[in-house]
């Protein structure tokens, strides 16, 4: 079963614009991670935010976490055509060790 739910399911923007994707989850977590998947490829880890952190940056990526609302957002600034991919949030629940539970993903299309 999928714990995370991403919103929107699909997002289409122009190069240079910012893209925001949201993730909601149901149970308490150790950390929340974001992964990217290009078409026909495996997933690539982007960023991890721990339950005691509220915001984290990595290059053009900004992730926020609100544990009271059980939600996270991923912001990609100044998007590029190469950012076109599916983006998944994955939660690491407190009780299940290293079992990541992935959401259904947001399909991002960046038009040149």
């Amino acid at each position, binding site marked *: 079963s999928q714990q995370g739910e991403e919103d929107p399911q699909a997002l289409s923007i122009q190069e240079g614009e910012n893209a925001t994707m949201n993730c909601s989850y149901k149970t308490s977590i150790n950390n929340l991670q974001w992964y990217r998947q290009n078409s*026909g*490829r*495996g997933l690539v880890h982007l960023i*991890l935010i721990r339950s005691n952190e509220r915001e984290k940056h990595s290059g053009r990526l900004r992730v926020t976490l609100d544990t009271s609302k059980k939600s996270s957002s991923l912001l990609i600034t100044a998007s590029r055509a190469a950012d076109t991919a599916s983006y*998944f949030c994955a939660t690491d629940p407190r009780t299940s060790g*290293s*079992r990541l539970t992935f959401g259904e993903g947001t399909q991002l299309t960046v038009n040149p």
Partner: protein
Amino acid sequence: EAGVVQSPRYKIIEKKQPVAFWCNPISGHNTLYWYRQNLGQGPELLIRYENEEAVDDSQLPKDRFSAERLKGVDSTLKIQPAELGDSAVYLCASSSQGGETQYFGPGTRLLVL
């Protein structure tokens, strides 16, 4: 550093046939995962190994799926017999012991006709 290697990349079989997937994790990674990803969905864990021990196989359909990691390095996932609903991408991932980040292979895309 070589990433996670999977083979084959694509497999087309008829229903009721057996199929096997192979994964070689990143060197030194003790933890190995097999996931299934249906079209338009996120990956779902099938089994997790710590070295050669399967520590989480609660979501593996054991009537037709089996997996092994005999020497604690590479792993094989088998389906016998395959059903139409098994069509999906099978992803292998690995992580260092206690590591929180998982590194994924390119996956095997299975089509059951």
